[in-house]
């Protein structure tokens, strides 16, 4: 951290805007994350609401992905990573005895930056989650789940005649929609998306954004994105991260038209980042 960064870092006292919502789906309080000795997240609190898309924006290395990965305990698999703070899903402690990580990840699904379909058929990709969790009692139910999920992800009409083809044979945008279908096949309550469109062309991006908007009806969605336009288009609330701290949270309209904090304003007007 150079001197100007250090000053900016110390300037961020506490989050501007209301981090809490009524009836939160997920409730994260005073989160600190360390990678070894290095602290990546400083005392961040944020609520995730039902039927809403919350966008997390900020310059590279600001900790937004790290924060997202706290929500389904994906950081647990990194040996040097340590997370502290209070994390609740429907009032249940994420690290409590009633929420095993396997169960948690069935309830909080995740879509990754790079499309990462399994080296299996399209059908098996979508059926994998229901299979390992035993969500379907027979083949017909499983078929239903697969078709349903693919339809919700807007992919069914494109692949219905080749469900046996490998998932990797699809185009990038289709692969990402397959990954979304795979995630919703488990019927999660929250969907985390880590820059889901960064590897896609504008047309595929538009399809995914439409899809996110539709999925909002049934799920709580948290999306990390580098594109401010995307954040403006798909989200209802926006959270701006800077150097591991949560600078400002608010309704997307307000953040993009009338930000309160100077750093937020600098970022969304493109002065840095």
């Amino acid at each position, binding site marked *: 951290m150079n001197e100007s960064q250090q000053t900016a870092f110390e300037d961020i006292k506490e989050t501007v805007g209301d981090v809490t919502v009524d009836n939160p789906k997920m409730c994260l309080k005073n989160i600190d994350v360390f990678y070894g000795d290095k602290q990546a997240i400083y005392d961040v609190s944020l609520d995730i609401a039902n039927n809403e898309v919350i966008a997390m924006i900020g310059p590279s290395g600001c900790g937004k992905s790290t924060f997202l990965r706290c929500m*389904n305990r*994906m950081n647990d*698999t990194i*040996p040097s990573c340590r997370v502290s703070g209070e994390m609740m899903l429907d009032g249940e402690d994420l690290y409590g005895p009633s929420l095993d990580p*396997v*169960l*948690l*990840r*069935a309830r909080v*699904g*995740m879509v*990754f930056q*790079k499309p*990462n*379909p*399994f*080296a299996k058929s399209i059908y098996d990709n979508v059926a*994998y*989650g229901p299979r*390992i*969790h035993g969500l379907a009692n027979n083949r017909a139910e499983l078929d239903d789940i697969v078709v349903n999920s693919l339809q919700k992800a807007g992919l069914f009409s494109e692949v219905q005649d080749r469900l046996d083809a*490998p998932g*990797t044979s699809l185009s990038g945008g289709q692969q990402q929609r397959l*990954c979304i279908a*795979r*995630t919703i096949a*488990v019927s999660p309550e929250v969907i985390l998306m880590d820059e889901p469109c960064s590897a896609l062309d504008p047309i595929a991006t538009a399809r995914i954004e439409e899809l996110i908007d539709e999925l909002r009806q049934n799920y709580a969605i948290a999306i990390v994105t580098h594109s401010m336009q995307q954040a403006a288009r798909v989200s209802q609330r926006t959270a701006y991260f800077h150097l591991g701290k949560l600078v400002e949270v608010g309704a997307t309209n307000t953040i993009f038209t009338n930000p309160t904090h100077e750093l937020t304003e600098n970022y969304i007007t493109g002065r840095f980042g």
Partner: protein
Amino acid sequence: MNNSDKSNAGAASGLPTPANKDTTSIVKASLKRRYAAEKRFKLYGILSICASIGFLVILMVSIFSKGWPAFIGTYMQLDITLDQDTLGVTPQSSYKELRAANYSKLINNALLERFPDVSKRKEKRALYKLVSSGAEYQLSAHVINDPSMIGQSIKMWVAADDEVSALIKYKANLDEPENITTRLSEKQIAWTKQMLDAGEIKTGLNKAFFTNGDSREPEQAGIRAALVGSAFTLLITFLLSFPVAVAAAIYLEEFAPQNRWTDLVEVNINNLAAVPSIVFGLLGLAVFINFFSLPRSAPIVGGIVLSLMTLPTIIIASRAALKAVPPSIREAARGLGASPQQVVWHHVLPLAMPGILTGTIIGLAQALGETAPLLMIGMVAFIVDVPSSITDAATVLPVQVFLWADSPERAFVEKTSAAIIVLLAFLILMNAVAVLLRKKFERRW
């Protein structure tokens, strides 16, 4: 930092800009040198490949040209009278009696009948030598198979002696016996020629080579015992080393915490791969034979010893293959709620399988060609009987090659090369199976 600052600084320090013509001329001047270097490098590559192919061709030509006669057997037709009195048995005799009967006398008599003018004792003995000493077993098997033949006269093709066989196979000019390098006397050559001219000598596929174990008589020595011994030994090696090595690799790569203990284990595995193989043989002798009292010379001990040797190879290759599986696949599975073990079994292992199989085949090929550790546990032995289980005394192909290469008879020279051919064929077969399996598992991601 803004752009105007940067360009000013560049101009002040005289950094080359795109307008600078010097860059073009400098690059142009060096182009020729760069391409020449590339051409030279390509040439070195082509030369080294040609040299390796050349040596391989020389090796193959030499092995095959020396080895092919071993696959050809020479047979003599004899009119054998299955005389009850000479044999001392009747068609009703028991199996034991039939086995104990004197068949060599019958064959000798048949030879004497064929050449009635041989009367001197020394000459007779020389005559008897034309036929392989294994002929009596051939005849005995034939008779035991159908005892009703006893008392009749039969025509039968029996194996010829290896020296006779060499004359026929290498097409020696039997009219000039003085020019032939052979241990046969001129009389014996003359008899051979007589039979050959009468059409009573033929060549054919040497079945004995594939059905017999080792023998002091070259025409009876076969590869079967060593082949079966090798197969048993490798089977044990594979069954022991593959699951253990894959399990170890998965644990170390996917589950083990990164600490001083796992580092120590890792270093030791790498060291184990470099331990001279004879040391494993000593370990096998001390632990498995002396302490656990496992049978000496048996494929079970050989297999255990070789699997100790193969383990590090497979572990190292498997870990590399597991490491090469993209982390995104693991994250995807974990993100769906798969447990760590499900992530490994459903996704990581299938994707790593081609690499693991490659490592396995390299390890097994190494084990197939190994003789030194087997020396210590008594598998370097003269084994006549084909082993029928993993606890029978056995030998393996490379040891057989070594034993035959050590034998003085000319016919063993061709046997040596033939055994090498069989060893190579075995290796190719093993590789083919691995390639097929790999094809099955190989998928893009």
